């Protein structure tokens, strides 16, 4: 069954991948501005035509655009993402160094936000129309509309600079050279504020979905019949309603899973966190085409993988999909 699934979807995903790879190639090059200053340095104005040409040749930018595209696709097919204009290093290596931090931050926040969102949404739906529910809705709306950089700045001002409970920036204490447990604790300590910010701005969506989904399930006939059987309210809630209400939340979770590797640009920049989001932001400013291509490609692949995973897992969660097959 798995094989049939892949044969059907395989062509579709390959086309998506090719389209994405082409867009990743074309879009950065359509931005006005030149990467030359990042290739050569700030005094680039003083270079002669010949010296500029030497640089363009070194990075393949002297080739006509269709040849650059062909080379890019050929390299990509071999798993070669090229070298960064800005740093000279292989793009794969740069992305790999940042990937761990981003997965830790964004993945952690997504898990945390999902757990909190489910619990909070359930409680609110259970107490529908009561002060807790109304207060929660207002709170979620407020959080939802809070700009992440503002929340991050408040955290930095109050909890890091004011109370001095947490560090102001970074993913670990610079130059401390900690090892083992001390290093893990140091990383955890630096993770608290960025992760709290990201979690807080992600929770409202999950809360709202969970609450709405649970309320609609609670109106179904099978809930009435469960109640009629004399089940306790708690039993109806957890055994019957929640399991069914979780499906939309699972969908959102799966979709978000694919975007974990794209990082959280704003939060990573404000906290100077070394993730993919900040890398992308810096690469856009520097017109670092290879890094942009590479990072967006990784994001594309990861979103496709998340979709495949969702397709495979969904039948396990929802028997109706299973029977429909």
């Amino acid at each position, binding site marked *: 069954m798995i094989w049939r699934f892949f044969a059907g979807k395989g062509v579709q995903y390959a086309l998506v991948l090719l389209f994405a790879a082409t867009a990743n190639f074309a879009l950065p090059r359509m931005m006005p*501005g030149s990467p030359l200053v990042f290739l050569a340095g700030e005094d680039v104005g003083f270079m002669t035509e010949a010296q500029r040409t030497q640089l363009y040749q070194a990075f393949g930018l002297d080739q006509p655009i269709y040849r650059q595209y062909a080379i890019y696709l050929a390299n990509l097919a071999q798993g070669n993402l090229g070298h960064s204009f800005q*740093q000279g290093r292989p793009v794969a290596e740069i992305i790999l160094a940042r990937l761990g931090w981003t997965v830790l931050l964004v993945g952690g926040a997504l898990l945390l936000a999902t757990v909190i969102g489910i619990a909070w949404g359930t409680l609110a739906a259970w107490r529908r129309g009561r002060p807790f529910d109304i207060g929660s809705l207002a709170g979620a709306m407020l959080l939802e509309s809070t700009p992440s950089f503002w929340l991050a700045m408040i955290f930095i001002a109050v909890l890091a600079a004011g109370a001095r409970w947490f560090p102001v920036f970074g993913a670990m204490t610079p130059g401390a050279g900690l090892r083992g447990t001390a290093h893990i604790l140091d990383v955890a300590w630096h993770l608290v504020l960025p992760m709290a910010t990201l979690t807080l701005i992600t929770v409202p969506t999950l809360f709202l979905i969970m609450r709405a989904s649970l309320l609609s399930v609670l109106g179904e006939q099978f809930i009435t019949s469960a109640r009629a059987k004399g089940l306790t309210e708690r039993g109806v809630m957890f055994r019957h309603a929640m399991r069914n209400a979780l499906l939309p939340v699972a969908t959102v979770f799966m979709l978000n899973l694919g975007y974990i590797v794209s990082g959280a640009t704003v939060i990573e920049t*404000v906290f100077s966190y070394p993730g993919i989001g900040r890398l992308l932001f810096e690469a856009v400013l520097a017109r670092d085409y290879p890094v942009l291509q590479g990072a967006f490609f990784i994001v594309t692949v990861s979103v496709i993988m998340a979709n495949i995973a969702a397709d495979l897992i969904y039948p396990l969660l929802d028997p109706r999909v299973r029977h429909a097959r």
Partner: protein
Amino acid sequence: MRKLSVSLVLGVLILMLLLAPVGAQSGAVRLALTRDEGWLNPYTYQTGYPGWNIMTLVYDTLYYPDLNNEPIPWLVRTTRVSTDGRTWTLTLRPNLRWHDGRPLTSADVKFTFEYAARVAHSRWTPTTRNLESVEAPDPQTVVFRLKQADAGFRLRTLADVPILPAHIWESVTTVAAARAFRNTVGSGPYRVEEVQDGQFYRLAANPQYFAGPVKVRELVLPIIRDATVSFTALQAGQIDANSRVLTPELVAQFEKTQGITVMRGPGFASTILQFNVEHPLLKDARLRRAIASTINTNLMVRLLMLGYATVGSPGYLHPASPFYAAGLKFEGTKARAVAILNEAGYTDRNGDGIREAPDGAPLQFTLLTLAGNPVRIRGAELIRTWLKDVGIAVNVRVAEDAAIIDQVWPEFDVCRGRRFDMAVFGWSAPVMSRPTALVDLFHSDCRIGAINIGGYKNPALDRLGEQLVTTVDPTRQKQIAAQMQKIVAQDLPIHVLFYPETIMAFRSSTYDRWAFQKGQGYVTKLSFVDPPK
């Protein structure tokens, strides 16, 4: 659940206890950088400031700019210049060594300049253009033969180009390889110990440094992307110094903060109104003068910089620059602007509130500025308001840096022309301290006036500029520079608005021997080591 949260709180507490002493006892100085600087070697560092300054902690130059930006001998002990200024014979100091213990000799110097000529780098390669040859007759002696005498040779070449170890770089032959090369063996006061991509650098003092004891044992350089966060970190004691200049709003607060010292001095970076002198209307110097006259630069300094800036001089150079033409001042008032406009025939003929040129073209311009600089955006808005008052319409357009530069300075090549009317722009501090700054900024040949982004042309200025670049005598240099400034002040191809002061803060409890380089700040080698005797 309760158990988990208790252990979490405990964990955090233990961790805070563990970490607090680490920062305090390390004896290290933490100086924040603005962004990644590659591997900190001459082919991978990124920014002119602070990147170059940090790179020169690891690599040495033959000369080094002192606190007045005058080049002083560094690796070099004696220098002999021929009377025509074309032959420079330098004797290196004895016992110079690379970090790996190998001796640093004149062969390395020769190698460096030949390497720079071969492997393109925007800062090193142009310095080799005027070199006829570099010889190393014996291990201590280097002889530079120049094609023509060069006013900037000491500062822009000898005090700028870091010497590379030949035994390490000779195998790195292409630009791409050099840009990816990670070796950091230099001869400087610091060795690179640790590079954490996107996070920080750790440098350790070189115990065998020839110029004597290095003042700070360990230098940690965290990268903090956000300016506000970097100053918060300084205030919270998580860094000890910051390569960014303090924003005016923070000065008063930092001066009052215990344990923090604020250093202030003239700044050599500039904020200018750049005209496109090739523009059909703006090519008229009278119109440029009228526009400049409407701008109240004194008020701008008070409003935008809270007084922490010097009002611009019309000859570009800062009054604190050794080349400044004394007494040069721009006086302009709104009344004067109106008088100039009326006299030149720029009047509002169709009554729409906007003046027209005699040929009917309305005085309507786009003013570009960079999104990354809030002060310049507010400056552009002020200019728009003031110009509207005298009947000149301005449309302010703000965009991200690379997009603006694409119009003002396409491909960073003045020879490719320009696509703008006016821009609020600026140049960094090193441009000001070069004796040849006025030539770079205003010479009409796009290969010589490499940053003449407005396309300004004046044959009299060109002639003086050609004289200046080959003049070695400082007194004569100053005379020529003064004449050039007077021409520029007359023609106004740019209008210098102000020079922001260089204001820098540090935690004096950790380290207080920072040396303040005029116009540039404390990120200099001289903050960590005294000049060699």
